[in-house]
Every structure is written in C-alpha cells, then in structure tokens.
C-alpha cells in the first residue's frame, strides 16, 4: 500500500465526515458573543480605523499636556527660588542718582529716643545712611527709632525697603506703633538674608568704613563695624508676600509671557538691586557698583 493510497483512504473517509456538536454549543456561542459586547458583533459598516486613531491620538495629547505642565512648574519653581537673584534681568539706571551721602548725627536720633524709653546709646554713633531723597530721610529716622527700641545690642544696619506706593503709608503708620506699643516694632526688609550678607561683607575689614548703597528707591544703610551682631526678626513686612499672592503673581507673569506681553518681575516682589560700595582709605575714595 503506497503512501498515496493511504492518504486517499483517509481523505475519502474522513474529509467530509460530519460530527454533530453538542446541543448547547450554539447557546454557548451566543452567550459569549453577547459577553464580548456589541462591538464584537459583526458590523461591516463600522471600520476599525477610528478606534485605532483614538488610541493613537490619546497618548500624544497627554504627552503635550504633561510637557506643558512640567514647563510651567519648572518656570514657577525657578522664579520662586531665584526671585532674589533675577535682578540683572532688568539693569537699573538709577545708580547714578544715589550720590548723596549723609551721616546721621545724634540729632537725628533725638525724636526716636523721645518716643521710646529705650536708651539712646544703643544706637551706634557711626551710623551711615545713604538716602537719595527727602522722604527716605524721614524713613531713615523712623527706622532708627524702631531700631533703637528693638535691638538691645549694637544695631549695625537697618534696612528699609519701601516701594513707591506703600512708603508713604507705612511712614505714617509705623511711628504710631512705636509709640503705642511698648514692644518695639522692627522695620525689617523683605529679604533679611541679603542684608545679613551685606553686613558680613562690609564688616570684614575691622577699621574700614564701607558704605553700601542700594538703589531702587530703597534706602539702605549699612554700618561697618568690627564687632557687630545683627538681629533681624521681621515682625512686620511692608509688602505682604504671602505665598498665595506670589503664586498669583507668578501665574499672571506666566500668562503675560504666553501672550507675548512684557513680564514685570517687580510685580512678583522681585526687585532689581544695584549696590554701590563706597569706602575711604586714607584720602582716597573708592567706589564700586555691583549689580546683583
């Protein structure tokens, strides 16, 4: 018997030999087709392509969203962390205006000592202030007043930061607080860390007197003294920098950026700072301007 015969024998007998399947097979198949859902039921008019398109498009859209979110977050965090160091973005031209140097005499402290029972000798006599304008002068005196009450040790520097709009208001309110409350109110700047740095750098040479001027309508007075200790505890801030407000400001600036408008970092409480260092060695006067 050849192989072909064998094949033919089986083919003839078995090729079209029907076997009746179980009675429940049809029902089982119906149940499974329904379980598979309406989509599994053949619908020749429904091409499978739209589904595939949707599946393809979805991850791409998600990718765009997440990228946008990541960029926004990085931008916000970057601005927030570096809000004090972004100053060079807007170079200041007002350094030249800060020229007038005035030494605060004890007379300037007189009103301060009258207001408070604290002794006047706590204020260092060699207090230098650089104020560009007359209003700042008043602020200076007031800052001294508060300083004399608050800081029991030698106060080396009191920095007052006043933006144009708020300065007038604070100037009038603050003396009253000094008067009313026996507990002194410290006029503290919004950026104490920076002030401490200033003091540190300026206090390194023991006998040198270095005047640090900070522009931006801010009257910065720094006293250089060998043994100084600064006690900055901001109790009242002139410009409220609550996190909510800052976040709002950042979002606003991001929106500006998106719409191609000008980004104003000053609105975020980020102000440009230009420091003018001035010192006298012998007869020589050395000035240095630093932009931070």
């Amino acid at each position, binding site marked *: *018997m050849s*192989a072909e*015969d*064998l*094949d033919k*024998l*089986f*083919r003839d*007998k*078995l*090729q*079209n*030999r*029907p*076997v*009746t*399947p*179980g009675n429940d*097979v*049809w029902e*089982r*198949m119906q149940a*499974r*087709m329904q379980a*598979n859902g309406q989509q*599994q*039921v*053949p*619908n*020749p008019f429904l091409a499978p392509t739209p589904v595939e398109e949707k599946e393809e498009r979805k991850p791409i859209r998600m990718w765009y969203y997440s990228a946008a979110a990541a960029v926004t977050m990085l931008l916000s965090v970057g601005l927030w962390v570096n809000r004090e160091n972004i100053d060079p973005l807007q170079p200041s031209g007002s350094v030249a205006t800060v020229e007038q140097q005035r030494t605060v005499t004890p007379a300037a402290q007189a009103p301060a000592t009258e207001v408070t029972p604290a002794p006047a000798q706590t204020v260092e006599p060699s207090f230098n202030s650089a104020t560009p304008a007359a209003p700042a002068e008043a602020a200076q005196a007031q800052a001294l007043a508060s300083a004399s009450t608050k800081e029991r040790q030698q106060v080396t520097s009191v920095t007052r930061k006043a933006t144009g709009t708020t300065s007038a208001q604070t100037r009038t309110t603050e003396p009253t607080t000094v008067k009313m409350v026996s507990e002194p109110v410290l006029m503290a700047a919004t950026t104490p860390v920076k002030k401490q740095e200033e003091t540190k750098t300026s206090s390194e040479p023991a006998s040198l007197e270095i005047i640090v001027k900070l522009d931006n309508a801010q009257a910065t007075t720094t006293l250089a003294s060998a043994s100084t200790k600064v006690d900055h505890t901001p109790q009242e801030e002139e410009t409220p920098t609550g996190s909510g407000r800052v976040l709002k400001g950042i979002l606003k600036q991001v929106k500006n950026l998106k719409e191609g408008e000008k980004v104003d970092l000053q609105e975020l409480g980020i102000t440009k700072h230009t420091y003018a260092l001035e010192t006298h060695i012998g007869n020589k006067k050395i000035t240095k301007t630093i932009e931070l």
Partner: protein
Amino acid sequence: MNETDLVKALQEGDAKAQRFLYDRYAGPMMGVCLRYLKNEMDAEEVLINGFMKVFQHVNRFEQKGSFEGWVRRIMVNEALQQLRKQEPMHLAIDKEHIHLASEDASADSDMSAEEMMDMLKELPAGYRAVFNLYAIEGYSHKEIAEMLNITEGTSKSQLSKARAMLQRMLAQQGVMIAI
C-alpha cells in the same frame, strides 16, 4: 439561500443568516476539529471560536473561491492554535517513534470512518496535525511549515512517520480481522 446571498446577509450582521450558517456547517466543521483534537470539549471550543471568527471577519471574505473552504480554513487554524496551546510538546519531532511500515497492509474499504478516526487519534498530536493538513486538507509542506511554525523538512518527516504508524495500525487491524 445560496452561498452568495448567505455571505451578503452575514456581512450585514443578520442573526438569521448566522443561525443558518451554523446549522449548515456545524457538523462538518466539528468533524474537522475532531480530527485535530481528540477531546470533544476542546473541539467544541474550537468550533465556537471558529464560528465567532467567521461572523466577525465575514466582511473580509471576497467572493472568490468557496465560502465553505474559507470557513474550513478558519476552523483548521483555530484547531492548530488550540493544539499548540494545549500540547505544544507533542508538536516536536519524536525521534523514538519510528516504526517500519508494514507492506502487507491493504486498503480495506470495509473499514469504517469511526475506526479510522480512532487510528488517527492514536497518533501524537504533531503527526496527526501534519497528516491531517497534508493528506486530508491538501495543504503543501510549505504551507504546513508556515502554519505550524516548523521547517518543511520537519513537516515531511512528521508526515512519513504518521503514515508509517497508520500503516502499522492498519496491518494490525487486518491481522485482528483475519483472526
């Protein structure tokens, strides 16, 4: 209902046509499935999956060639898939299974289809699959190699071993009948 109308109705998702197709082809296709799978439950499972595939993809059937052949091909593929899932080891070549063909065996026309089915079931799954595909379904070794993911040489050697086993069984049958 002729085949063309049936296919058209199926392509429109007509439930009556589906039932009609099932009634017409369930028996023959169950026979096909049983040739590959010894277990009746497995064969029914393959039958269900095969019919569902037919309903699902009937719009891909172009009116070329026979619709029954198309349905049968789907069933065969489903059966092979099930076989692979179930007993993948049996598809490998079993070198120990070499039996010499008995030349004495003659084609006994009296032998029933049942007896031949029983013989087929005796074969290892791999042998049975190749023999089914080549001898009964009429696929070439090349096609079988692609369907089973084996080489053509493997397909040929499996076929000759399946034939040898069957001839030996036929010879034994003849002896038993003679006694």
